[in-house]
């Protein structure tokens, strides 16, 4: 009896010890699609990681991981080497993340910009970048003289198409004559190709350039050519001080800190997060005064309205390219429709690559 009791005490102490150990060893891993120095997408995720580190939690990261087979190997490696929470920060990591999550039920996974949560240990999160695109569209529509807006697109996924549509709708509202020209580069990150695409759009008459790719190359091309541009993911102003009107900034830090602490303390639950201007996950860099104080005021007001919910980026009536109604007059698109968006709205030229 006494022996058994002692055994019990020892095993409890041992368990506590293990748990204590596990807590002290709590580690968060990050998988990045580009280098941390891209000054765009990955750079911002890494800023978020640094905030987690500052909150006293150990982190590691792997950068420049190609989407595909390599990604699964890296995620698996992180899970095996004792990481308790893993953020996979690109759309293309969606299937690999879910695949690895199945084999490591005790590890938590957070996948950015995706929609698959096949196992209870996978959460998804994203930002409502399209709210930022609405602001860009407003500025682009007002600033363009040629009425041609050039858009460098990466991959034909809902997130990118949503951005194109939100921008076009907002631009049409202030300038019904605008045309959106799109070049697909099929990469998130290839400065050479991105700058060639920017140049091609400028040569085709675009005097406002925006990008859904991650390098600073397009804004530099725009600066040289003397046309307007917008930074992507982080404030790119110093790469093109004259040309950049503003940048859409992704601020992941608060979310990363909150989720890391939750996972450490055992309160982490599966969820799908989609935050925007309101929560601050999407923020705008300072507006370039070159667009005039009136326009700056207008855009600031629009930003406030989007944040408060007074205005919605996708307010009806919205038509697709063939003229079919997508969103009825007076109503707004619901999140389900936004998440799966795969048609262009009226006014966008060309077809979505299949």
């Amino acid at each position, binding site marked *: 009896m006494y022996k058994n009791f002692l055994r019990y005490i020892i095993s409890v102490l041992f368990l506590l010890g293990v748990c204590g150990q596990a807590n002290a060893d709590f580690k968060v891993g990050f998988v990045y699609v580009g*280098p*941390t*120095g*891209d*000054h765009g997408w990955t*750079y911002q995720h890494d800023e978020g990681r640094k905030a987690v580190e500052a909150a006293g939690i150990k982190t590691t990261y792997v950068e*420049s991981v190609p989407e595909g087979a390599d990604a699964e190997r890296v995620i698996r490696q992180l899970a095996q080497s004792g990481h308790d929470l893993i953020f996979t920060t690109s759309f293309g990591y969606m299937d690999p993340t879910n695949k690895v999550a199945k084999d490591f039920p005790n590890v938590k996974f957070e996948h950015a910009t995706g929609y698959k949560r096949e196992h209870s240990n996978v959460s998804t999160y994203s930002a409502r970048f399209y709210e930022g695109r609405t602001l860009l569209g407003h500025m682009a529509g007002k600033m363009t003289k040629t009425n041609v807006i*050039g858009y460098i697109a990466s991959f034909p996924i809902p997130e990118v198409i949503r951005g194109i549509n939100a921008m076009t709708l907002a631009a049409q509202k202030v300038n019904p004559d605008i045309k959106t*020209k*799109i*070049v*697909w580069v*099929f990469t998130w990150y*290839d*400065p*050479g*190709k991105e*700058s*060639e*695409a920017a*140049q*091609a*759009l400028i*040569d*085709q*008459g*675009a005097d406002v350039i925006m990008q859904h790719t991650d*390098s*600073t*190359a397009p804004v*530099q091309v725009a600066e040289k050519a003397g046309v307007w541009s917008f930074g992507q993911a982080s404030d790119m102003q*110093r*790469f093109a001080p004259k040309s950049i009107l503003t940048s859409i900034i992704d601020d992941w830090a608060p979310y990363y800190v909150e989720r890391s602490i939750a996972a450490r303390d055992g309160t982490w639950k599966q969820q799908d997060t989609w935050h925007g201007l309101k929560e601050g996950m999407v923020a705008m860099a300072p507006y370039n005064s070159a667009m005039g104080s009136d326009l700056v005021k207008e855009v600031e007001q629009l930003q406030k309205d989007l944040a408060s919910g007074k205005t919605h980026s996708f307010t009806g009536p919205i038509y697709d390219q063939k003229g079919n109604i997508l969103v009825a007059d007076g109503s707004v698109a619901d999140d389900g429709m936004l998440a799966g968006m795969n048609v262009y709205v009226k006014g966008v*030229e*060309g*077809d979505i*690559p*299949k």
Partner: protein
Amino acid sequence: MSFDLNFIGILIGAIMASSVPLILAASGELITERSGVLNLGVEGMMIIGAISGFGLMVVTDNLFLAVIGSMLSGLIISIIFGLLTQSLLTNHVATGLALTIFGIGMSAMIGKNFVGIPGKEFPLLFVNLKENIPFLGPILFGHSIILYFAFLLPFLTNYFLKKTKIGLIIRAVGDSPTSASNQGINVILVRYSCILYGGAMCGLAGAYLSLIYTPQWIENMTGGRGWIALALVVFATWSPIKVLVGALIFGGITILQLHMQAVGLRIPVQLLSALPYIMTIIVLVVISRDSRKIKLNTPTSLGQIFYKEK
């Protein structure tokens, strides 16, 4: 698409600018291969040139030093290849591949400190002529000095290989190192020189990317251009002029497909993206059909290890 003449001039100018790194790297590799050495490390030497050029520009604030330094670093890195393949007689293919992997890793490591720094404006020549002469202006003027050099290089290389004694010696070494050696030619010395020259040109090609084309340092910024340069040399059947043609076609279709997208032509984008590769191969195969000439130009001992029997 608007078809006014000046626009076509601007387009041709852009195409020329995009083909410069291919011309430089392929011309360098061509000399190396004509001496019988197959160096698959082009991509690695280019990326080392790119980071060295950009790093030196940031540190010294001197573009001239940066360009010279990038060539020197390409040359230095090719010494490793020379030592291994010529002195230690390792396999050319394996050593070249290792050089590429080494170069990419090494450049990423050095480059950590240079990420996110905006580049410096590289001086362009005759900018006012470019703007004042329609059509021909944007084609002929407003480029960097390296572009003019790149477009001269294939002709110089052609002349050098065909009309000079050293050119003849290089070809002799590439065709039959044993006979060349029996004639009293120092085969190893010739091959070393060709390897170093190839390295320097690849370094310059890299510097063109990091200093002029997209003036910044980015990991892996050569983006496979080294491999394309290698392929160009083979498909151009070791003729410098055909290398120039191939590089222009490749650069041309890359740019044109972006324009076709921008005007909204209804061709599948994936097909457009593959077009530069397909068209370059087809054109080069068609213009190089003469098998007698291919035999004449192909360095017979390419990739074979040579050692002098004592």
